[in-house]
């Protein structure tokens, strides 16, 4: 790389980082495209711009210098950049894992699930979002078809909690319970519910959902389940 190109690259890295922090999808896409054209490796772009931006946003959020939508928008800008820089083939090598996510049957409150999906995806997970009101079977069909690592079930309404159990029961019936980690969350479900239905994890909020997925993917086999991250309110 020439020195002039070096300057362009570091300018665009800064621009990408800034675009992510601003949740500016278009600028993020542009900067990422230039960086790719300049021949930067995807991993370098991730490590030098995308990850630092998301970490910075996480800190701002914690310090109440940003709100949750800022986090979601940053995540979407980061995702856009990732889309540009990741090769179509072998994309798998760059993702931490695949998560099938949805709000359980009978429940149409999707805000929590949407937040988790956005944040997970910004943190390197490939998300297959089934939407709301998802029947138990659909999680399983999709997880099998997509070769997912994690099934994430959200539930805001107490009466729907019981359908979560059905997902796990059906996995057991099909003898594929150990093929997927099942994680649960949402206003209706507390840590003990994860234990009761035999889920693999529970997280208090979207940020902890990322940690939860990381933990399960990295050393899920050795840990006692469920893994509980955060305190019930």
């Amino acid at each position, binding site marked *: 790389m020439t020195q002039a190109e070096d300057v362009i690259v570091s300018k665009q890295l800064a621009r990408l980082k800034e675009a992510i922090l601003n949740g500016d999808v278009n600028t993020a896409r542009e900067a990422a495209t230039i960086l790719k054209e300049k021949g930067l490796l995807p991993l370098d772009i991730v490590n030098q711009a995308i990850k630092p931006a998301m970490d910075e946003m996480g800190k701002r959020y914690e310090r109440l210098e940003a*709100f949750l939508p800022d986090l*979601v928008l940053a995540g979407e800008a980061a995702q856009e950049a990732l889309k540009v820089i990741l090769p179509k083939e072998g994309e798998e090598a760059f993702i931490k894992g695949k998560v099938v996510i949805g709000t359980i049957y*009978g429940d149409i409150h999707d*805000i929590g699930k949407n*937040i988790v999906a956005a944040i997970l995806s910004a943190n390197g997970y490939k998300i297959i979002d089934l*939407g709301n009101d998802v029947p138990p079977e659909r999680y399983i069909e999709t997880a099998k078809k997509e070769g997912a690592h994690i099934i994430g079930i959200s539930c805001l309404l*107490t*009466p729907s909690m019981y359908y979560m159990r059905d997902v796990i029961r059906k996995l057991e019936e099909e003898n594929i319970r150990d093929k997927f980690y099942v994680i649960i969350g949402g*206003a209706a479900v507390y840590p003990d519910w994860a234990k009761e239905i035999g889920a693999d994890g529970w997280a208090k909020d979207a940020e902890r959902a990322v940690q939860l997925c990381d933990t399960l993917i990295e050393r899920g086999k050795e840990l006692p389940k469920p893994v509980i991250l955060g305190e019930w309110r």
Partner: protein
Amino acid sequence: MPFRELAYENAYELAFGFAKKPLSYGLGLSVGDGKVIPEVKYLLKPGLEQNLNALVEEYKKVTLSIMERAANLGVTDVQLETEFVEPMTMNPSWGAAVIETQKEVLSTYYERYGIRSALRATIADVRRFSKGLRKGEYFQAIMDSFINAAESGADLLSIESRGGQEIFSYSLIRNDLAGMLFSLGILAPRDVRYIWKEIVKNAKRAIPAGDTACALANSAMVLANGLVNRKIPHTLAAVIRAMSAVRTLACYEEGAMGPGKDCAYENVIIKIITGYPMSMEGKTSAFAHSSLVGNVVAAACDLWSNETIVVEDTFGGKTPAIIFEMLSYDTALMNESIRSRNNKILQQLFINSDKYRDPQALILSPDNAFRIASAIVSANSDYERTISAALEAIRIIEDNLSILNMPEIEKRYLATLKNFFEAVPDEHKLIEESIKKYSGKVPEFNATNYEL
């Protein structure tokens, strides 16, 4: 028939226990006519909706536990709300059986102890955006449930309708103010008007009571969370509440008559406009969700509710009976203040103990709710009303910035809000832009659901 004027001359006139247009219904109950009445709501644990007999039996037990508590405490006026869960709504005859059994219990206590009572049936909005909001199996199930509930003796009919929720959920967590305005100012009122016209037609002897912006403004309130764990700006949650009053008002313009539903915190504004009695919930709804408006909303209530509590047997009795006891002492306090003509003082205490806790409490304080109500009735369309409500809420927060204890980031956000609402596109343009923007991007969004 649009409201063009306020039912109240000024905020000071607004009182708990008194509505300009009181209602009489049920077993001798008078609401808004000089007293505040406890309204208790409960949610069965899942599982029972699989078996009609067990379901009816459980509702009967709940009703008995509440009425027995009322008799034991000497409470003379009681309202119950049965919120249909989805399976009950999908099987309208089940809901009917529940209502009938509950009303039998109420009659027994009316005859034996003279306890006046009524039953509100709140039908679940089971509609799926993908399957049509205005027709089809789900829509029909709702209407059949209303008809059945009314025929079986329900005194009041309510729903938490969800029109606009698909765009609202999407835009709220992306700070997409145009999306929120599209949802609250265009989609939601259109849906409310459509569904309430149908409900009013089907109400029979029951009173079409009212709707709530639960799916919208309460989602924002829950995300706003507390003073420490705020996930979205509280200024935004407050402005959303003000805006949501327009869609809730629409049901009354289509024939609903009150009492409004408890979880519609915007009811303070609605009462000022319509004069109808309102049910409200505050501190005692903490089993359903935390809020920063535990006292202030009592200032305008005619019924005082707990939002909901999961039915369980505990040490102190069945949970609905327990929470009913708490409500009844609160209403006893309010009613004693009316009897002794101290109600304006007690009302002021309710207001001032919360008013400056949070912008959400600030804008529901009667004086400010009056300003928002005035802004709403002065505007012409639902869309303009929604913008006026937002702008007035922003102005109210600005006027009180020095006394509100808010972090800097909230103050900066308020400027963002103001900039947006001072330069909104006109209605047609927003519709056009929004349809283009959200079609495909929000899979559940379908403009034909709103005849757009």
